[in-house]
């Protein structure tokens, strides 16, 4: 196998269609694998919980990027779709007694259906107008779960306590192993989601999504059924988001409407913008970055508290302001996101010592 890209000469389409060609790329993949395996051995429970949050965010961000970054259909309904996944899975598993894996699978289907329904305005609207329409879907879902008519969802409590995850005779354990066991489950699902999403965009289906994004009239003129392509994108994207929602519910063991507000939708949009629109790797970087950022800010502020007491007393405000500042700086420095930054670094080393 060639070490660098200049030595790669594909002899078959099969070899060219592989995602990786050089040894460097395989080494990087192996390193990522090692990192995933090592994490539970070196992090404490606190950081493990953050790692788990990141893994769920990765699934959700990948889903959102399929719709927004790849198909060009902006969506502010992410929070609502997460809620559909969460509530559906919990009600099916805890209340109806279905096995949890089945409940999660059905929650994915349910969210895909709901997402497709709320994607209908996308057939007529584009850009900001579609953003407003999806904002409406967010508000409708949020309103319904908050009001909880007839106490159908939470039985009047306002929230649902979720049973500890168990399936096929396996039961997630107590405090000492809880985060680590969840980590294994979430890491497997996140990797599968990333691979599945990556695969979509190696095939004709994914290309038709990107065609709709780049040039919808030309897409129709080569035979892409716009209605079908857009609704499929909404369905596939919402499926991933539904999975993230269901996992949030079972992992955090409590479901309440506060976890699925418009703020969440915006946070996810920020993830894919900071990470890189129209890139699966970008969604992953963005999810990691946006989940870690508040944690880092909090830790830095706590460390500095003795020197600058204002930081501690005004933590939420400081956190929000820094958060916003970092995003703005980011968009100014590299509007195409973390993924583009990473590609530029790779290019730099590839051509080193030449500038181009």
């Amino acid at each position, binding site marked *: 196998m060639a070490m660098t890209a200049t030595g790669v000469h594909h002899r078959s389409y099969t070899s060219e269609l592989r995602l990786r060609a050089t040894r460097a790329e395989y080494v990087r993949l192996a390193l990522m694998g090692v990192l995933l395996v090592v994490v539970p051995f070196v992090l404490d429970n606190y950081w493990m919980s953050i790692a788990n949050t990141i893994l769920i965010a990765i699934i959700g961000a990948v889903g959102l990027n399929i719709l927004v970054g790849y198909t060009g259909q902006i969506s502010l309904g992410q929070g609502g779709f997460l809620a559909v996944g969460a509530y559906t899975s919990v009600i099916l598993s805890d209340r109806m007694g279905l096995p949890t894996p089945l409940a999660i699978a059905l929650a994915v289907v349910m969210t895909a259906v709901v997402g497709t329904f709320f994607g209908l305005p996308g057939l007529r609207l584009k850009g900001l107008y579609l953003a407003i329409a999806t904002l409406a879907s967010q508000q409708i879902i949020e309103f319904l779960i908050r009001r909880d008519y007839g106490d159908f969802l939470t039985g009047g409590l306002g929230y649902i306590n979720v049973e500890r995850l168990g399936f096929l005779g396996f039961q997630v354990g107590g405090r000492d192993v809880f985060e680590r066991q969840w980590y294994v489950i979430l890491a497997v699902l996140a990797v599968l989601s990333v691979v599945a999403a990556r695969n979509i965009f190696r095939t004709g289906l994914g*290309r038709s999504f*990107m*065609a709709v994004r780049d*040039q919808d009239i030309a897409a129709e003129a080569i035979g892409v059924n716009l209605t079908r392509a857009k609704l499929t994108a909404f369905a596939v994207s919402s499926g991933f988001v539904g999975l993230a929602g269901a996992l949030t519910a079972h992992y955090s063991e409590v479901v309440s409407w506060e976890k699925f507000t418009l703020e969440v939708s915006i946070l996810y949009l920020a993830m894919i913008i900071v990470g890189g629109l129209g890139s699966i790797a970008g969604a992953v970087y963005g999810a990691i970055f946006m989940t870690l950022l508040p944690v880092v800010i909090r830790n830095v502020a706590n460390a500095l508290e003795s020197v600058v007491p204002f930081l501690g007393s005004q933590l939420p405000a400081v956190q929000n302001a820094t958060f916003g500042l970092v995003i703005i700086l980011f968009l100014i420095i590299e509007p195409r996101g973390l993924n583009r930054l990473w590609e530029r670094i790779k290019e730099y080393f590839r051509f080193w010592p030449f500038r181009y």
Partner: protein
Amino acid sequence: MLTRAYQHSLNGSSRPEGLPLLEVDDISLRFGGVKALTNVSFTVTQGHVHAIIGPNGAGKSSLLNCISGIYHPQEGQIRLHTGGGQDFRGKDVQEGQHLLTQLPSYKVARLGVARSFQNIELFSHLSVLENLMLGRHIHMRHSVLASMLWFGPARKQEIEHRHLVEEVIDLLQLQSYRHKPVGALAYGIQKRVELGRALCIQPALLLLDEPMAGMNAEEKEDMARYILDVHELAGVSVVLIEHDMNVVMDISDRVSVLDFGKLIADGTPDEVKADPAVIEAYLGSDTEDDEVKDAERRMQERTDV
């Protein structure tokens, strides 16, 4: 001249040479008060290069948009004939006809009517290869689960269709641009990619809207060569809008002339050239002046983009 033997036929029509392929029957198209087309009728014959000419704003692009289902004329019909011969798989196909004026444009495309646009409409963030593979869209199956799995039917299909796409890349000499994003390519190359994407459909009818506009003499010659290759070797029927009269007279079998949305002449290049109405409306008017205006308009268009 082509010497390579290609495995795939690019001609998607199952119509024998010389029979009517496309009938434009008395169509009229209005935009509010603007009459873009008025009672236009003509027939495109299988195996012909059929040129449509006319001054700026005559309604040529509108006519093409009507054929490909992007515009729907208020009156009249456009019929596409299929069958009567063998398709590219060598199967006999029954005669049939389709009313294009009642179909959305993606369904027209699925009948094998492929096109290029006057102001290049490529998928600019995608590579040349991806753009051409999108030309195979109608021939592929798009199952969500198979796509997510990749290994199995999805990969097999990608490789299968890649063979035809590579033949088109070879035919149009796009080898060195294969993995380049089309948005970054030179204008002349983009025009070629657009032709390539249409060819990947294996068109029953190829509609080209000013494929040589904005090119220098050499690029024009190349493009004319590609169109002739496609036509002569693959037998694809072509409807061509073109301003350069030399090119039109050189490569077309038949010419229809539009002026102010009306068909003022229809015949062989020689007949049309001698037609007094055409000389009056098109050639007779101060051509040089027109060309200057045309060039100005084009420069304006290019800077607008």
